[in-house]
């Protein structure tokens, strides 16, 4: 029961820059076609993809979830599951991957083609030390052995900018920070001096400033080692920052390709245009994508949230408590959207959870809608929660998979005993309409709709009781850009309509720039800077805020180039280092590879 879905038959736009015949390429996909056999029939994931990567070149494969970009890259490693049928040919460093035996293929992996994964925590084995894992790859490929391998591992760690590399070798992955872990993964990837690196969303799990560093590192790596990089990403800013050439994938096909300037500045295909049009841009401020926020906030409006010297601590066994939020003060007026910005570990979600009464405050004052929640009994808390709505990051996890959508949305009404069956149903229908979903989804289950629709359901649920305050914890981080744009638009519409106060927690400065009236920047549980959006976004005073804003990439290669230079100047001015591959002599690095190295 094969039912291929050749839904796209339109024009394919090809720009310049594609390698011509005879030119040296390290990775070439030739009419690659992948089908997965499942018990539901066959799924046509990749439909004839042609792509070439030169040495020292970054080719970005861009697309939203389900476009087949990761599957395409996996064909080069031949790591697809057994139910995949692969057509066409993939050439890695001149050898056709499909014709190799499993044994030769194992030698090829890591040796000629290496991979950098999205989540460094899971790409590294948690029970082995960094040193063991680094040496393993080299010894397997006979690049170095014993003490030589250890020495080389230390050298590699130093190259990717890990301080005190000899000490880090004995550490376990969980002892390093996310950025350092990704550096270790990169060090492992280049340990055998591969000709091509496949980087599958290498910065998606990282904070913006770390992302900028990792991108700097990857850029200097391909320049110095002349490695080809196939960069798979959904982030147009990363593309603008890194790529030489871009291929845009949609439903398993490349719909547009060309140099990064051609694709990002003069997109031809409607999909590319739509994709680029959906990315909120740093510095463009309001009104993008037709998202408008009610700018007039009554300065005399009552306070929805009032924080005074709030401290939140997590108790730890046998250790002093961990102070997640330290002396934070700010307030949110009714009808106002306050953006809470910070990197992971800054305590922004902790404040959000405290606002929902899920974690207690250790000291300080937390007034919600005029009432102090730090000393409040259970019944008062429940009454207060009736006036607060919440949206979480992951729409798949925040809806009970066993409850139909209608019941999910009606849940707050049931919990607080509002109305009868009929009136609840009417309310749900009304809300579904407000978030642009057909009322027939009432009896559907959350798994039957896609991510953005699920998040709209979460928005509807949050608004069921007409809350005066909405806590939105990274509401669009798990969504594709085009979907994010729509959710944000609906969100802005509803905010204008209902006039609720909103604590908008996000790591994405561009989204905050688009929505928030006020911005609070957090770092390690402390407020770094707070003020009106214009002031923070356009004229940041603190070093950290400046670095944060400078690190956010924009989907425009020319502009991004300028921003990158500005960021490097800023870093130098602040006495920080610019991440790059610390290597003096490439020949020496290559020369230290053992003679016995595998020849595939």
């Amino acid at each position: 029961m094969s039912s291929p879905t050749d839904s796209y038959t339109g024009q394919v736009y090809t720009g310049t820059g594609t390698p011509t015949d005879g030119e040296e390429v390290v990775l070439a996909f030739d009419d690659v076609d992948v089908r997965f056999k499942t018990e539901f029939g066959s799924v046509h994931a990749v439909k004839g993809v042609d792509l070439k990567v030169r040495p020292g070149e970054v080719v970005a494969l861009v697309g939203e979830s389900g476009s087949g970009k990761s599957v395409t890259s996996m064909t080069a490693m031949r790591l697809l599951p057994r139910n995949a049928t692969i057509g066409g040919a993939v050439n890695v460093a001149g050898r056709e991957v499909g014709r190799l035996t499993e044994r030769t293929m194992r030698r090829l992996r890591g040796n000629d083609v290496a991979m950098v994964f999205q989540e460094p925590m899971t790409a590294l084995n948690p029970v082995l030390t960094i040193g063991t894992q680094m040496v393993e790859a080299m010894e397997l490929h006979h690049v170095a052995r014993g003490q030589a391998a250890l020495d080389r591992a230390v050298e590699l760690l130093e190259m990717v900018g890990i301080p005190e590399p000899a000490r880090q070798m004995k550490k376990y992955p969980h002892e390093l920070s996310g950025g350092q872990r990704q550096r270790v993964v990169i060090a492992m990837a280049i340990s055998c001096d591969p000709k091509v690196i496949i980087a599958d969303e290498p910065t998606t799990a990282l904070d913006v400033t770390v992302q900028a560093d990792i991108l700097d590192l990857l850029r200097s790596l391909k320049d110095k080692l002349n490695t080809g990089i196939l960069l798979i990403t959904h982030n147009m800013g990363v593309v603008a920052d890194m790529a030489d050439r871009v291929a845009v994938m949609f439903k398993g096909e490349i719909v547009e390709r060309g140099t990064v300037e051609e694709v990002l500045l003069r997109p031809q295909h409607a999909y590319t245009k739509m994709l680029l049009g959906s990315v909120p841009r740093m510095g463009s401020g309001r009104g993008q994508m037709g998202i408008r926020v009610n700018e007039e906030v009554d300065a005399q409006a009552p306070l929805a949230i009032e924080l005074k010297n709030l401290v939140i601590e997590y108790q730890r066994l046998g250790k002093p408590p961990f102070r997640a939020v330290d002396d934070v003060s700010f307030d949110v007026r009714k009808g106002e959207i306050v953006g809470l910005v910070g990197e992971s570990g800054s305590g922004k979600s902790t404040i959000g959870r405290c606002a929902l009464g899920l974690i207690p405050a250790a000291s300080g004052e937390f007034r919600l809608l005029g009432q102090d929640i730090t000393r409040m009994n259970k019944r008062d808390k429940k009454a207060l929660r009736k006036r607060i709505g919440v949206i979480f990051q992951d729409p798949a996890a925040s809806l009970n998979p066993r409850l139909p959508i209608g019941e999910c949305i009606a849940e707050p009404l049931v919990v607080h005993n509002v109305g009868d069956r009929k009136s609840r149903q009417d309310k749900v229908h009304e809300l579904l309409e407000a978030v642009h979903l057909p009322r027939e989804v009432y009896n559907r289950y959350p798994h039957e709709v896609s991510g953005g629709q699920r998040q709209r359901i979460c928005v509807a649920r949050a608004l069921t009781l007409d809350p005066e305050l909405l806590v939105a914890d990274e509401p669009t981080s798990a969504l594709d850009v085009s979907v994010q744009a729509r959710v944000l638009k609906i969100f802005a519409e509803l905010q204008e309509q209902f006039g609720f106060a909103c604590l908008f927690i996000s790591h994405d400065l561009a989204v905050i720039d688009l929505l928030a009236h006020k911005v609070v920047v957090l770092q390690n549980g402390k407020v770094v800077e707070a003020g009106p959006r214009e002031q923070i976004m356009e004229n940041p005073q603190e070093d950290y805020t400046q670095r944060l804003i400078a690190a956010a990439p924009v989907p425009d290669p020319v502009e991004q180039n300028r921003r990158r230079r500005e960021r490097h100047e800023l870093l130098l001015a602040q006495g920080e280092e610019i991440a790059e591959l610390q290597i003096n002599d490439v020949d020496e690095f290559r020369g230290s590879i053992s003679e016995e190295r595998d020849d595939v």
Partner: protein
Amino acid sequence: MNDKPDDTTPPEGDRPDQDRPPVPGSGREGLSPVPFPQDKAAPQDPDTADDVSDLGEGPDAGYSVEKQIDLSEKSYSQGQLVRRRFLRHRGAMVSLIGLLAITVFAFTSIGYGVIPGWWGKNYWEGALVENQGRPTLGLWPPAWGEHPFGQDNAGKDYFALTMRGTQRSLIVAFTVGLVSTVIGVVIGAIAGYYRGWLEAILMRITDLFIVIPALVLAAVFGKMANGGIWPLAFLLSVIGWTSLARLVRGEVLSLREREFVTAAEAIGTGSGRIIFKHILPNTIGTIIVSATLAIAATILTESALSFLGWGVRPPDTSLGLLISTYQTSFQSRPWLFWWPGMIILAIALSVNFLGDGLRDAFDPRQNRTAD
């Protein structure tokens, strides 16, 4: 590149302990992203991918990665969906019919209590042993004869005995399945949800029940029970709930950290509602599988206890007792072993299949039937 066999790997989300949806970015999605169409709305789903366009979302809607919700299918309520899926599960339906047939047959043939049955002989009355007690049941031409399942040593009608044993075994097995499941679920859910000292106490009690040998308990209570089946059922329930309590606690521990539980808490939902409405329905797979296994295991445990003289005692009987009484006759008079044995097998198998069907029916993420 066809060096790999074209077999279809079984979907991994088919187990109750694995049925958490993959969290994007958590890294738990698996190494190679397989567009496994459990997400109905995923763009690659062959069934829905063609009609790309969301509800009136402008000219660019054709390029959206979001799918229009397929409204052509009829919408069903949760109860209807579960029933529909269950009724479509062929294995479960066959098993249900088989189990019902066995139950009806066992209870109508010799009657229960004061209600008389249609079979004329009583299981406690001996008679003259005819033809070495061979079964008189004929398949072709179909005939019941005098003693369809034969006779035992004392000339008692083996059909009546087997039916009586089936009754007893069914009652014990289902009572234990129900009671031990309820105890296990409640204790596991409370321990897992509230954590803290409550969990510590409950789990230590559970450990206590695990370390006491079942046979010692049985020896003590068996004497007091004096061969009645209700005390026996109670005893088996008391020692049978521990594994489920630990399983449920584990599931609850992971579920309570999920965002939908946090969301429910943030709405102001009470603990009871969170446990029974949000958490327990998500563990239904584990519970049902465990309950069915408990039912099957109980039949065997009961037979072991009966064999040791602590379970059902003659002149009353159970399937286990029948088997253990006549296990030595396996060579000479195999029917004395095979009739109760086949019925045990049939009950255990059909209960397992039923559990399978129920689990599939309760899981909205899989809309397939196991045929």
